[in-house]
């Protein structure tokens, strides 16, 4: 491996490797704004300049190829003066409104200003200001904070394959905006906020929700489609504040689509059924009437009563079990053991996305990240030998549906059904009883993405209310004696 010298330290590198990355690997930080490992190099911000022996001028580390024997200085007097100068230039027109800025705490401009800038300003002229425009539902633009790094423009062109962010006017008046001030169209708009090195582009969804330093971060997997992108869930006080992409060069690289990013909302939804419930009438064996008010008839109860009700519905019937392909491998395996032992002659199918019955139907939806299967574990379900649900097998008398929060319920043909997992109140009316389970952010587990890659889910928040993990629910089911009848109104 060829070697270069950075700040007196001999460092190995692979030819073609970016100098910033080479230095980072050796534990040497070269500050930068416009450079992004997932985007093309433009060398515009000039923050990453370094001194290279035998070169009279400072060179930008992002755009200079590292060569064998190169001697690089990242902390020489010249370099430090330039870093100070670039910081000064970037801040003379910046509003310095960190106290009210959502980026504060994770802002490159703020961090590097602290590290490399000067606490005094020599600027006494009037600051440049812009009018802001509405960029649609995802992104809030605050152009005054912009440092013109053009990462957003490059992201649109190079990753999202849409030319919507542009630089208009020029020089000191350059404005980063959308073509004709139109709202953003891409389904990947959230990434604009992620890559923005200042608070110029922020997520409307996250705006003023939480100071970032309060957030606890859990590495997990997005359940939005069979891509299984690596993701980070950020929460505080057991409430998810946002989801961000987690770098995984084999899967999603640095990016996440908006559908996956904002999928988490159902987890903390007020209408989610968080307590065991008996639906419709106090007598669970009576058939549900389509005219009932769906909200008023989801009656909270205790676990024992709900399980009893469920058992009553399913006992002695020919049961079809539908397993959401949004469940983990571990959960599916558990059900494969539980179902035959509990309901003799039951048939089992997986379900998830209308029209996608097997991996053969699954394909990339946009040639970027999104896939057609809108559940993450379709491939895993098939690897476990489960068949995709097509239509209700003849003779089915009752249905047990087990799902996370993502699989789309198929037509249950009005058969008596029990729902186990995550349901909201409007979906709950289709069942006789609801046994509340856990959503993706509330459990550990494994999914097998479309590419046969095992991706690990990690619990970020605790299940709400009385929701329980599938293992617990099945255990309660098994251990509860059929004759132990507690009243529907009895305490848990």
């Amino acid at each position, binding site marked *: 491996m060829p070697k270069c010298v950075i700040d007196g330290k001999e460092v190995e590198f692979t030819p073609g490797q970016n100098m910033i990355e080479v230095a980072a690997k050796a534990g040497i930080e070269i500050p930068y704004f416009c450079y992004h490992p997932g985007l093309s190099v433009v060398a*515009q911000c000039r923050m990453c300049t370094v001194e290279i022996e035998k070169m009279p001028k400072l060179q930008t580390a992002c755009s200079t190829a590292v060569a064998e024997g190169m001697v690089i200085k990242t902390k020489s007097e010249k370099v430090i*003066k330039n870093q100070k100068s*670039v910081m000064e230039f970037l801040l003379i027109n910046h509003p310095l409104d960190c106290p009210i800025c959502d980026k504060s705490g994770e802002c490159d401009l703020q961090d590097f200003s602290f590290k490399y800038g000067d606490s005094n300003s020599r600027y006494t002229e009037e600051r440049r200001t812009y009018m802001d425009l509405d960029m649609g539902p995802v992104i809030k633009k605050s152009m005054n904070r912009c440092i013109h790094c*053009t990462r957003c423009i490059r992201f649109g062109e190079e990753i999202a394959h849409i030319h919507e962010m542009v630089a208009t*006017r020029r020089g*000191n008046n*350059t404005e980063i905006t959308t073509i004709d001030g139109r709202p953003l169209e891409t389904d990947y708009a959230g990434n604009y906020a992620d890559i923005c090195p200042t608070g110029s582009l922020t997520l409307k969804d996250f705006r003023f929700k939480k100071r970032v330093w309060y957030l606890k971060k859990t590495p997990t997997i997005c359940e939005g489609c069979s891509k299984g992108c690596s993701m980070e869930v950020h929460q505080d006080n057991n409430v998810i504040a946002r989801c961000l992409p987690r770098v995984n060069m084999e899967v999603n690289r640095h990016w996440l689509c908006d559908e996956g990013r904002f999928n988490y909302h159902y987890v903390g939804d007020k209408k989610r059924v968080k307590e065991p419930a008996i639906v419709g009438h106090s007598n669970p064996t009576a058939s549900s009437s389509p005219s009932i008010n769906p909200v008023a008839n989801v009656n909270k109860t205790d676990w024992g009563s709900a399980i009893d009700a469920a058992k009553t519905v399913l006992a002695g019937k020919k049961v079809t079990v539908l397993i959401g392909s949004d469940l983990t491998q571990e959960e599916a395996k558990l059900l494969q053991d539980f179902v035959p032992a509990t309901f003799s002659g039951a048939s089992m199918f997986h379900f998830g996305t209308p029209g996608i019955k097997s991996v053969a139907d699954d394909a990339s939806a946009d040639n970027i990240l999104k896939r057609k299967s809108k559940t993450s574990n379709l491939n895993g379900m098939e690897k476990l030998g489960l068949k995709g649900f097509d239509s209700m097998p003849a003779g089915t008398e009752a249905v047990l549906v087990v799902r996370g929060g993502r699989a789309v319920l198929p037509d249950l043909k009005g058969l008596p059904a029990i729902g186990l997992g995550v349901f909201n109140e409007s979906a709950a009316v289709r069942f006789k009883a609801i046994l509340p389970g856990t959503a993706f952010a509330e459990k550990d587990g494994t999914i097998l993405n479309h590419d046969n890659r095992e991706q690990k889910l990690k619990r970020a928040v605790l299940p709400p209310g009385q929701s329980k993990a599938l293992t617990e629910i099945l255990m309660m089911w098994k251990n509860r004696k059929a004759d132990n009848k507690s009243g529907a109104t009895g305490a848990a």
Partner: protein
Amino acid sequence: METETIFIQHFNEESRPLAYYLAKMDGYKAAKKALAMQPDDITAEMKKSNMRGRGGAGFPTGMKWGFIPKTSTKPKYVVCNADESEPGTFKDRDIMRYTPHMLFEGMLIAGYAIGSNIGYIYIRGEYTREAKLLDAAIDEAYEKGYLGKNIMGTGFNFDITVHRGAGAYICGEETGLLNSLEGKRGEPRVKPPFPAIAGAFGGPTIVNNVETLAAVPYIITNGGDAFSKMGKIEKSGGTRLFCVSGHVKKPGVYELPAGSVTLRQLIYEHCHGILGDKKLKAVIPGGSSAPVLTADEIDVVVDIEPLMKIGTMLGSAGIMVVSEDYCVVKLLGRITKFYAHESCGQCTPCREGCKWMEDIIERIEHGHGREQDLNLLLDIADNINGKTLCALGDAAAGPVMSFVKKFRADFEAHIRGGKCPNA
């Protein structure tokens, strides 16, 4: 003996038509000769000629052509930089206006030398008349078979298209020009790759100034050595077109052998001295981006190396002469305003710094300066100089540093007196 010149004797309306070019100027004979030569021999001849690019950087033209890879899967391009955007420069306009066929012939030879069949003339948007004249002249050349398919029966094809700019200084920077030519925003690119490797539309490209290309037929006809000997100074061949403007009695375009005159001779002999016989205050020797010279510094030979030695540059040879009663603070303010306005805005020091300098100089000019402003100006200029993506930053910083250093007393008078002492 009258000094030999290449262009100036033809700078009149009669010389424009193709018929005149063919009859009186041995038109397209150099191309005929070149098309029978080996392409490499043409480049070798260019190297011998000591032709240094006339656009501003003074890069040896033959060497530039030599950088073009011999084999390429992509088409190669000859791009003529006719943006002539440096303030104080107006020589290329005359070439395009009066002797357009010299330019076409030069491009055609350049195309043959590097193996390109496509030529673009990127002309500045303000040159509307010249763009029309070029288009008409190109039509004439196509009609008579000097452009297009199978030129003069040699089997060589070459097309020229005129592309008009939309009015941006930065599109005179070669990579900014290429972006603009491709229909993109006119912003310089990161180099490397240089245009010789990946230029227009990703293909190997030479970008040459109008005067450079228009001199190529002369070099081919008379040989590189003859052209080189025309220059009276080492490493600089041929003649140069000087654009003299400002407070001289006879401003205009002058053609003189490279390195044959001093600034003093040019101003006082060729241009008949300062208007109103006033004293000379300052000279900007190479377009507005060149660091300024004082009246004591004009005994310098006007060419690339001598000017570089005294800390300025020949640039595009746009010489601006300033008489004693003109306010240098106002002049610097105007120059800086220009660069701030023309900054493309992509890199930090230039985008933020040029406007900052403009604001400070404007304050000083109008009597609102502070003592610390001069050192602040010098520091901002130093923070821009050599630290930007393209040369525009240097172009803005050079004048500020030189004006403040050389005319510091004038600036201080503005600050202390609260107004211009000349006013």
